[in-house]
């Protein structure tokens, strides 16, 4: 219990420290509840997108198609919202995400080419499909009456349910253990009788459910989803991917479900903090990159730091004894 509390405290300290730094830099702009609330709300969609990426990532799949699948899902949801209302939007977004996920997963299974190459090619194909579906204006807009999931409390409820679903699949199913085994060592997993290709395919399909949810929330929050071409959709997955990398580092002290949220929340504090500090946009990427490196260096080398401390203690003891 004590260890759990210490670990929880450690995890929470990450966004708290970052927030305090910006509070010192720009107290007036950063010391209001609205700011923290906005950061929280902005964290939800990238966190759910990160959940979609996480399964494949743990299996060792590098999936470029996430953004393009999200666009297709959003566009289909938007188009069906105009025809069948809210039900059309929800079913359209989730089902189209699953269908495109199945196509990606099955092709990854059958074609036996590196996921990086396959998903890069598929991204271009999916982007064109998204553009064609989006029609003449290149984006799909929904009526405001269907945008009910874009604001609180609905968006928070959807987030909590999504996090619970992710947690359940990731911690309480046989599939999750297979997924980790495949990601850890595919050959060993195969020799142990795990159908590794099926596991990889499933990881993409399960992730698609979260893509569908993220698409619904994007439609609701932005009111529209725009088609992307020339690999423009890849930018959608950059920040969620950074949060996964951070969460994998934090995994030693907290569950991945929470870790992804905390990492994304911290990234958003940096994003709004830099805007509030009046720093140029270009500076944000530098800070985000540095932040990722610093956290990874600190956590990945924590064992070595501990070892150095121990050595120093022993040396001091030896000196004092002599």
């Amino acid at each position, binding site marked *: 219990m004590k260890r759990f509390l210490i670990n929880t405290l450690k995890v929470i300290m990450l966004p708290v420290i970052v927030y305090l730094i910006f509070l010192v830099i720009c107290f007036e702009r950063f010391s209001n509840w609205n700011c923290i609330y906005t950061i929280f709300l902005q964290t939800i969609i990238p966190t759910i997108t990160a959940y979609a990426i996480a399964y494949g990532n743990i299996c060792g799949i590098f999936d470029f198609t996430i953004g393009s699948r999200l666009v297709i899902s959003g566009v289909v949801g938007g188009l069906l919202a105009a025809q069948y209302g809210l039900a059309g939007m929800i079913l359209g977004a989730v089902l189209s995400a699953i269908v495109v996920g199945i196509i990606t997963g099955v092709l990854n299974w059958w074609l036996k080419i590196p996921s990086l190459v396959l998903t890069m090619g598929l991204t271009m194909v999916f982007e064109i499909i998204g553009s064609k579906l989006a029609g003449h*204006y290149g984006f799909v807009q929904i009526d405001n009456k269907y945008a009910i999931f874009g604001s609180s409390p609905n968006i928070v409820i959807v987030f909590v349910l999504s996090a619970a679903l992710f947690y359940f699949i990731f911690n309480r199913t046989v599939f999750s253990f297979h997924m980790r085994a495949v990601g850890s060592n595919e050959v060993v997993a195969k020799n142990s009788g795990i159908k590794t290709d099926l596991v990889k395919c499933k990881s993409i399909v399960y992730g698609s459910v979260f893509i569908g949810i993220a698409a619904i929330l994007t439609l609701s929050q932005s*009111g529209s989803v725009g088609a992307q071409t020339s690999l423009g959709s890849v930018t959608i997955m950059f920040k969620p991917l950074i949060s996964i990398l951070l969460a994998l580092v934090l995994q030693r002290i907290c569950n991945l479900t929470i870790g992804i949220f905390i990492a994304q929340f911290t990234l958003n504090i940096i994003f709004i903090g830099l805007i509030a500090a009046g720093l140029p946009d270009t500076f944000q990427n530098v800070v985000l990159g540095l932040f990722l490196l610093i956290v990874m260096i600190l956590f990945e080398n924590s064992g070595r730091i501990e070892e150095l401390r121990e050595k120093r203690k022993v040396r001091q003891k030896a000196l004092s004894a002599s």
Partner: protein
Amino acid sequence: MKLRRLVAIGMTVALSATMFSGVSVYADNSDPEPFKIGFPWDTANTDPTWISIYNNVKASVESAGGELVNVVTDNSADGLIDNISELISRDVDGILFMPASDSMLPAVDAMCADAGVYWGTMFRTISDDDIREAMYDSEWYAGGCNEDDETCASNIVKSMADMGVTDLGVINIAKGDTSSDLRDKGAAEGAEEAGVNILNTTYDISVTTDMTKTIESYIAAYPEMNGILVLGTYCGGAIPTIEKALADHDKAGDIKVGRIDFETTLGDYLKEGTFNVSYGGQQQIDPLVSAVILVNKVIGTPIVEEGPTNIITPYLELTTAEEADQFNEYFLGDDAVYTADEIKDKMIKFYNPDIDMDYMNDLISTFSIADVVERHSK
């Protein structure tokens, strides 16, 4: 007598031959030699503005009987260099493109000079003095169109200041892009003159989620913000996304919104009164006239005999919902803002020897939404 008859026959034959040769010369000069213009453009993009740019260039090239050769591009400097190399290998006579930076131009000029291919630019000016001087000296640079981005940005900031805006959040396309930099510079000048405080500028937003995030961040970090200005963006549906974010925070109508470059949804928000001012319309006339400059050069009748032809196309101002609807119908439809026949009569020097810089500037000064509606309404 015999000699006179022979002379008469000889003269008749000579006259007939001359007559036939005259017909032949006339036939050769009735149309320019066939030619091909290469055009790197992202034709996969379904954005109506991007489609209209292609349609306008195509109309210009076809007006003089040319063929447009397209290669799909990402419009980056490296990508464009590859595209130009590919177009040269496809034996084009001229290449029109939108430069990603000044620094890529010497390489383009060297490639085109080696291949004997004319090249022209659209939408962009050459900011770097040394590069501009070198390019203007090149016999292969035909010239191009650009807009006075700096003045336009300055004017729109001042317009917004007249509406009561004092604190402005800005969005722009990627830094380093010539237009982006000039618009930034103009906005800063306009803000200084009008006493407007530019709170922050966010660059290179391409997806709606990032647009929402940026607007919400501005609202959270700058409670005093009373204006949002989009100096430029490649994000589809930018204005609906901004309006949605503002409405979700009960700020629609309170925060004035302005945009350089028209988009299809402006009419709805102008009607509602939540969108306030836009300068644009250059996205159709600029590529059209840029292509006209290159075509004239390629077929041997350049608008300016010495050096490149550079024309500044004007920004149009959009302030009413009716104008927005007309813009969507006549600028973003299937037809170019001047049809191929109109271009042939009014802008191709081969057919109209009166064309020179003054003529072109006079013609462009009459260009407006109302002008296009009048010419093309059925």
